[in-house]
């Protein structure tokens, strides 16, 4: 039997930890940008539809798979999936549920460490007196590992280590004593900070504190529906993608957390409560901060320009400057709240990423909790350092793309097929409804069996062969040119090679050198990620053989 005797301390703690797992930096930085780029208020329709027919079913699938596996003493996806069908192949699909977390944690902890560092810089007034370019340059110097404004050598690496140590230490305290306790403190604080900043976002007046627009301008920009966008498959694809990232489904963390739920306890209501809490943070709070404040001070044109580079730029390069328009004291407080909120959103997710690996070592190799936690910290350090040192050579983005994007869709597709078609909907439905404290609508039997897997398949194929500019009309009429963002083009490094060809044509030697190095690091990081996947698969094989030897299988 497994040496793993962890359990949740309370139901509310479990829900807050599960919501914390889902709530991440993307709730505040990615959602508003996606909404603006995909039809404003009309984006919310495909977004909520995808939540109902893909998000909620996947939550129920993952919660019930986790609880089912937990009854057999399994707390990570390889052997959770293995209990669901006689095919030995499934445990290797379950490797995704450990690999994704390790690979995502490697760059996510770095991202999280920025928030910690920026919290300190906000508190110490590092941004005081800087103009907007100054704050943006501060960020560029930071990720380039240039000299720190506070005299700390290699400041990003120091903060990365602090962040990693903090995560490891909390993980070593266990589920109830570490993860749950952080969620119980972090989630209410996150909501409190979010409500304060949302209030500020809703009450900007043109002419006050240097604002050039009322809040209503930003809110109009975000919420005015462009219904013509509803007919665009790209918008639906973006909405489905956002649901994935925001709920942390397809990762293996939900399975892991749910595997510690008692066999007779509810999962249906718990999943709904955690899922809607995440939606509240994303739609209500996330939609009220970044865009309304940015537009209030910078105007629509400038923000439209900035959102092309994603939410990270706005969050780290722009907001610290805008907060200072409220005066040095309130600016510092708002900066600390903003980066504090992002930090809590980050740490409650990164802690979840550690638990599948720890559960696997504890279950299969009888490791003690502390050793398992420190091994996670060490692996993330080794795998994460390239994202810190070679940030400008695309390593960070490469991890994010393969582990944090593609892998989620692939794993979710497999698990939905396993659950609905291989394990079987009859047994699956019994698992979802067993011990349920709410009545699960019967229509979900149909949705889980047909709609969710088909939608996932469409998201995967749509990402694999995305047509140029998202123009599905032209693609379906026979002119299917792949977009540079499609998975196939990404594998072939099409975009990088185009840039390199242009640089060679322009005889820009500096750029040629940088792009050649980037190409090398991009390919090297892919090899590293594949190596980690194969190593975990090998460990799963060894664990399986050990089980056979010990007569457990």
């Amino acid at each position: 039997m497994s040496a793993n005797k962890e359990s949740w301390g309370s139901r509310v703690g479990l829900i807050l930890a599960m919501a914390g797992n889902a709530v991440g930096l993307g709730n505040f930085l990615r959602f508003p940008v996606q909404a603006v780029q995909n039809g404003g208020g009309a984006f919310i329709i495909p977004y909520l539809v995808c939540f109902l027919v893909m998000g909620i079913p996947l939550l129920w699938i993952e919660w019930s798979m986790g609880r089912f596996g937990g009854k057999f003493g399994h707390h990570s996806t390889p052997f959770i999936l293995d209990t669901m069908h006689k095919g030995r192949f499934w445990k290797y699909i379950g490797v995704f549920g450990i690999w994704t977390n390790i690979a995502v944690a490697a760059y996510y902890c770095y991202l999280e460490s920025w928030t910690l560092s920026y919290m300190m810089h906000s508190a110490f007034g590092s941004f005081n007196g800087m103009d907007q370019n100054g704050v943006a340059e501060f960020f560029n110097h930071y990720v380039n590992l240039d000299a720190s404004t506070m005299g700390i050598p290699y400041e990003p690496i120091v903060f990365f280590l602090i962040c990693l140590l903090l995560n490891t230490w909390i993980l070593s305290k266990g589920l109830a004593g570490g993860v749950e306790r952080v969620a119980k403190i972090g989630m209410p604080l996150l909501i409190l900070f979010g409500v304060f900043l949302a209030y500020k976002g809703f009450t900007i007046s043109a002419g006050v504190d240097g604002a050039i627009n009322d809040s209503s301008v930003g809110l109009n920009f975000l919420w005015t529906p462009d219904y013509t966008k509803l007919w665009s498959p790209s918008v639906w694809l973006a909405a489905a993608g956002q649901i994935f990232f925001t709920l942390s489904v397809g990762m293996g963390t939900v399975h892991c957390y749910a595997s510690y739920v008692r066999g007779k306890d509810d999962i249906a209501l718990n999943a709904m409560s955690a899922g809607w809490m995440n939606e509240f943070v994303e739609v209500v709070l996330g939609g009220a901060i970044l865009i309304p404040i940015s537009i209030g001070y910078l105007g629509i044109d400038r923000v439209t320009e900035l959102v092309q580079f994603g939410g990270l730029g706005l969050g780290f390069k722009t907001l610290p400057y805008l907060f200072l328009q409220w005066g040095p004291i309130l600016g510092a407080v708002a900066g600390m709240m903003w980066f504090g909120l992002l930090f809590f959103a980050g740490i409650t997710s990164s802690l979840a990423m550690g638990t599948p690996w720890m559960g696997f070592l504890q279950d299969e190799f009888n490791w003690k909790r502390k050793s398992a936690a420190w091994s996670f910290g060490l692996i993330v350090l080794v795998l994460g350092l390239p994202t810190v040192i070679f940030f400008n050579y695309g390593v960070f983005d490469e991890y994010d793309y393969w582990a944090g994007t593609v892998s989620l869709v692939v794993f979710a597709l497999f698990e939905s097929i396993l659950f609905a078609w291989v394990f079987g909907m009859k047994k699956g439905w019994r698992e979802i409804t067993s011990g349920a404290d709410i009545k699960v609508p019967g229509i979900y039997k149909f949705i889980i069996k047909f709609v969710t897997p088909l939608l996932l398949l469409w998201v995967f194929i749509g990402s694999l062969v995305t047509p140029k500019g998202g123009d599905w009309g032209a693609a379906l009429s026979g002119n299917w040119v792949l977009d540079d963002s499609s998975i196939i083009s990404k594998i072939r490094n099409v975009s990088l090679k185009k840039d390199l060809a242009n640089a060679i044509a322009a005889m820009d030697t500096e750029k040629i050198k940088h792009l050649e190095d980037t190409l090398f690091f991009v390919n090297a990081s892919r090899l590293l990620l594949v190596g980690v996947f194969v190593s975990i698969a090998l460990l799963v094989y060894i664990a399986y053989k050990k089980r056979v030897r010990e007569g457990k299988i």
Partner: protein
Amino acid sequence: MNTSALVVMLTTLSLVTGLMLYFFYRVLNTPPKPEPDSFLGNDDDLTRQNVAH
């Protein structure tokens, strides 16, 4: 704000906040299940799916 943006925003915010509060309220007000006793707690068909039965 323009009317259509206001309608979409208020509808969405009330729906999402309402459902979040409703489900959390249900969690807080559902009595905990009793600890399983030695009989009831072990009456599951705990068979791994690859074992013939």
